[in-house]
């Protein structure tokens, strides 16, 4: 359950428990003697204590944020390297502003021959690793880690980026005994925050700090401030969770970000010391407005229009075709001319001119430029922001800027459609799978935000047609196989094979046998289904006078990937899908079919399964399909989905037997 807690409300809440304060360097005898964690005896390590503290401190720029972290971990098994090898990421904006990680201290405690030993981290073994232009890591390894060791570290991260008030994750892949986050706010910045995964903290509190602080020139007369400066005290907010279980990852979940217990912050208002208040973000409409004014979003769209005009006249030479046709041509031009560099973001990372020259950029570079081109061609296109699947879902009640990480285009032709210019193997009006994540927001000037559904209700279908004959000399199957993929299945096949005959043969030879001839249809026509046709020889299983034949060869689903008994999270197939099979087998005159299996039929709100055998003179006809009607199934539908998949694997791979009669 998700719950929004506005800071100002918390001042009235009272404490009903206590926080835990531990001294760095002072561990207890119980901690060192601990042999396992009672609530999770299998765990290889447990976080005993994790406390984060953010404060605003006086800096040259006014106020910067100082985040201090103190963490203590019990290691039951030293092979657990994720917690013994530490990386602390920090951000450098490339324009002179940087986060700073300092005061790293780490101690390993071991019990050796009944006495406690301590090994401190040598500061010379802290390394600074540059990952890319923006991100660095401070890295170190805990020394002398033995089974049963306690690892303790603390560090300070100072950031000038007020938008980056550190978030806090209360849960980890190992259990956490105690997790606390304390934020000391100053009156000038107002944040809202969102808590995910729990409805109640074990402890939460807000108090006013004792220390008096001031901004600007404060001068006192009879106890009153008569200067232009402001006196203030910090508001201190504390949140505690205890005995948090380990987060167990499961297959087919959209993103860990959608489920882990955490707390996100968003700067909402700036209260100037002079008395004025500017709203940073308070509604989605406000967020839209700020985006439209942003130099790398709305202003970027405007500034790139001149360049877009040039491109339209020189490269695209638009004529009097319909708006839809024009839009299609522009989107296809963008797809074929530019390469997505894999970066996600809403804001352009370079000027339109640089982007045009580099031919490569982020989704924002590509799609904002594409919108500029569309608009310049007289087609109304608007940006639409969304959160990609790996980034988690957008809690639409809360207008947090960082909940979205991608921008696409809403193209308002006679029938409006959504477009993205990053994937050449998708049709002009089809979004990449990463974008299919609930909903997106149209960035426009409007009082009421407009959300657009990004779910894809269109079925992706794979149709397999097999015409088989039995080679009565070698007793093998000679077959013509046609496989046609539509929608995302066709994208997936195009992307996997790239029309490369070797890749296709390598993939299908295990499924349909020794391929002698293969052809493909419509690889380049991405709006059409992608088809592959094969001539193949499939070795059958021979049992004396009997030949065992799988009517659909090895094309149907052969394994159920849902293996867990229970499921805590939804099963996310991303899009609804269907596999269709049609197979014919001409039975030679000296063979007879010994037994025709029963068919199978199931149809309900979740799935449809049909399998039907019929004999028309000497032709065996087997038809079947399985269809999953929803893209996402809730956790309590898991058992049914798992059962259907089991049935599919069993029924669709069932062989038939031909017996030689003489």
């Amino acid at each position, binding site marked *: 359950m998700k719950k929004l807690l506005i800071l100002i409300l918390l001042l009235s809440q009272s404490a009903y428990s206590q926080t835990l304060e531990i001294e760095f360097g002072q561990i207890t005898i119980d901690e060192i003697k601990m042999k396992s964690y009672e609530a999770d005896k299998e765990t290889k390590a447990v976080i005993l204590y994790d406390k984060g503290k953010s404060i605003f401190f006086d800096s040259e720029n006014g106020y910067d944020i100082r985040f201090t972290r103190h963490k203590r971990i019990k290691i039951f098994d030293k*092979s657990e390297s994720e917690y013994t090898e530490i990386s602390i990421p920090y951000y450098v904006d490339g324009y002179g502003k940087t986060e700073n990680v300092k005061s790293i201290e780490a101690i390993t405690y071991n019990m050796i021959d009944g006495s406690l030993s301590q090994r401190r981290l040598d500061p010379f073994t802290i*390394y600074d690793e*540059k990952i890319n232009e923006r991100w660095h890591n401070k890295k170190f390894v805990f020394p002398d*880690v033995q089974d049963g060791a306690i690892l303790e570290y603390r560090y300070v991260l100072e950031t000038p980026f007020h938008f980056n008030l550190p978030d806090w994750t209360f849960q980890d892949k190992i259990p956490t005994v105690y997790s606390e986050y304390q934020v000391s706010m100053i009156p000038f910045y107002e944040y809202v925050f969102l808590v995910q995964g729990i409805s109640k903290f074990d402890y939460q509190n807000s108090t006013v700090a004792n220390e008096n602080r001031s901004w600007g020139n404060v001068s006192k007369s009879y106890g009153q401030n008569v200067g232009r400066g402001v006196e203030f005290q910090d508001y201190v907010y504390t949140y505690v969770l205890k005995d948090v279980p380990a987060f167990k990852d499961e297959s087919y979940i959209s993103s860990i970000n959608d489920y882990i217990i955490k707390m996100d912050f968003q700067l909402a208002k700036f209260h100037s010391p002079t008395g004025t208040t500017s709203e940073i973000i308070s509604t989605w409409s406000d967020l839209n407005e700020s985006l439209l004014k942003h130099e790398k979003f709305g202003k970027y769209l405007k500034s790139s229009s001149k360049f877009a005009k040039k491109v339209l006249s020189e490269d695209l030479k638009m004529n009097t075709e319909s708006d839809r046709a024009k839009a299609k041509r522009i989107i296809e031009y963008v797809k074929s001319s*530019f*390469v997505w560099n894999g970066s996600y973001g809403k804001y352009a990372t370079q000027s339109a001119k640089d982007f045009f*020259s580099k031919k490569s950029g982020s989704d924002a570079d590509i799609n904002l430029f594409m919108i500029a081109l569309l608009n310049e061609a007289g087609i109304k296109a608007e940006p639409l922001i969304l959160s990609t699947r790996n980034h988690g879902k957008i809690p639409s009640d809360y207008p947090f800027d960082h909940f979205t990480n991608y921008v696409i285009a809403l193209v308002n032709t006679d029938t409006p459609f959504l477009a993205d210019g990053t994937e050449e193997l998708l049709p002009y009006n089809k979004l990449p799978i990463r974008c299919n994540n609930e909903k997106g927001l149209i960035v426009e000037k409007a009082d009421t935000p407009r959300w657009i559904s990004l779910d894809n209700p269109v079925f992706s279908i794979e149709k397999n047609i097999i015409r088989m004959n039995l080679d009565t000399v070698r007793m093998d199957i000679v077959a013509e196989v046609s496989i046609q993929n539509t929608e995302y299945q066709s994208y997936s096949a195009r992307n996997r094979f790239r029309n*490369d005959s070797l890749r296709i043969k390598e993939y299908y030879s295990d499924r349909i046998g020794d391929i002698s001839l293969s052809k493909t249809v419509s690889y380049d026509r991405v709006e059409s289904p992608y088809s592959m046709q094969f001539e193949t020889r499939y070795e059958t299983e021979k049992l004396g006078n009997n030949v*065992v034949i799988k009517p659909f060869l090895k094309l149907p689903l052969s394994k159920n990937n849902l293996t867990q008994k229970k499921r805590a999270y939804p099963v996310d197939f991303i899009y609804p899908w269907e596999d269709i099979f049609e197979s014919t087998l001409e039975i030679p005159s000296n063979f007879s079919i010994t037994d025709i299996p029963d068919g199978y039929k199931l149809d309900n709100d979740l799935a449809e399964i049909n399998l039907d055998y019929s004999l028309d003179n000497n032709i065996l006809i087997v038809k079947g399909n399985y269809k999953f009607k929803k893209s996402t199934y809730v956790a309590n539908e898991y058992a049914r989905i798992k059962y259907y998949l089991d049935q599919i694997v069993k029924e669709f791979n069932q062989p038939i037997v031909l017996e030689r009669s003489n």
Partner: protein
Amino acid sequence: MASLVHVAFGQIVNFDTKITMADNGKKTTERTLLIQINSKEENWLSHIELNHSPNQEFKLNYARILDLKGNITRKLKKKEFITRNDLSYQAFYQDDLITEFDLYWSEYPYRVEYSYTIKEEEFLYLAWWTPLVYTNVSTIDALLEVNMPADYPIRFSASEQLNLKESKLEGRKILRWKSSMTKSESRNEIYSPPLDFPTVKIVPGEFKYGVIGKSDSWSSFGNWADELNNGTDQITLQEKWTLEKLIAGINNRNEIIKSIYYYLQDQTKYVNVAIDVGGLKSYPASYVCENKYGDCKALTTYMKAMLKSVGIASFYTIIKAGEENTEIDPNFPSQQFDHVILMIPSETDTLWLENTSSALPFNYLGTFTQNRYALAVNGEKSQLVKTPSLSIDDVLLERSYHFQATDNNAVQVDLDLTLRGNEFEDFRSFISDNDEDRQKGEVRRQNGVKDFHFDSWNIADFHRDSTFLQVKVEGTSLSEIRQIGALQVINPLRIVLPDFEKPKDRKLDVAINYPINKSDKSIYNLQEFEQNDIQVPERINIKNRYGLYSADYSKNGNELIVMEKFTLFANKVPNDQYEDFYEFMDMIKIYKKETAIIIK
């Protein structure tokens, strides 16, 4: 309808490497590349990553896009490239650097040209050059030019197909090798030998890399490696006392070594931090004493130092590790290694220790370092030594099944699994990591029974010194006895053969670095079917120079016993003999495919 085409790769049109040795011993390497990109599929070639180290002076001279006429379409700007750490999964941290940039264009074909210079004072190789930049992209023209003082002493080794042109000018010697049309190679054929592209290797007569050294013989090269790590094999006094306590009362030399080795395994952890001197210099043993972690060099030095402290001599032994691609050129003493192990000679038997794994038994090298040359470092007495090879018995995978039909179509399965060789090593590491999921995954992979549902599995009689591992598995299978039409069918031959390509598709030799040896025994209790007609296949026994295969069926009361054995010897099969080799494999394959127990 379009016929399929195998997607062609772009080409390296030109690849020039010019190396200049200054009189002061400083080396300058200038590389210039011209790459042609023919389609969007090949755009990966315009993402450039250039490796260098903090000890080198690196300069990107220029990078640009050209059209086919040679006109410059775009130049790379200074802000468009970045230098970052090399983020390899092999190391927790390394100080090696990568300068990277992209030069994409959207009209095909286009060309990317760039040039960079590396200056360095310390190096082991003057050149280690091959005309290929990427193994999967052909190079049309390549040049290696080395310009050095005429009296600069070098040794070199060059592939036969490369011709040397030598000239002299104003007291300098210029060596040139040219290559044209060097074809890329794909290595997706199984059990293929290492890549063998034309190569030129040049080493200086004398070099300074950390310390001054020579590589005119393995002895002198080993001496340099010894000097480089001089003084690193000292442990702390505290550690000395710990060891004294550890071995108190043990008199047997091998037992002392074993105790110390197990102490190393239990107390330390493998973490690779690659910094300084090209990742070749070891951290001192005292560092591992204190921190209890290190890379292969540091952990081996530490083990060596511990043995030294109790009066046992051992040798730091550098080796090229891996299951494949393990050969070095024994006739060209030089740095050709990437791993370190420890050799302990004795009067009766040499002991070998892999010091980075807490999972392996004592004196066990395994698939990672078996049967190859390595350099045992011992000052002037350094020499190439050969590591022991895994025998057929060392790698024998045994499975003993007991199948019992039950009432509900299921078959109860009891399996005794004995793992050796690679599978043993993997499983021991999963045990050491306490990783139950991977242990279970491995049991699932090795059990060989279709649609197998586990009831239980456990490791039997685990012993740390043991070079095999026994796992007992119990479960059921719904498809061990399949109902096909009116028949019930059992496929009892479950040894999986390597899937060798058909002769028409095989281009490379076969290189099997260590043997494959598998043996299955399946006992079926068929009491339930005693009224039925049970047809058993013909037995088979093939034996030739490539290996062995046999399948045998016998009855003992209600029990049907099936024995299947397969051995493939460590071997090198040249491509012109592949058809003969394949025939052996195919014969087994056909037999297995047509073999089933039929119950009517």
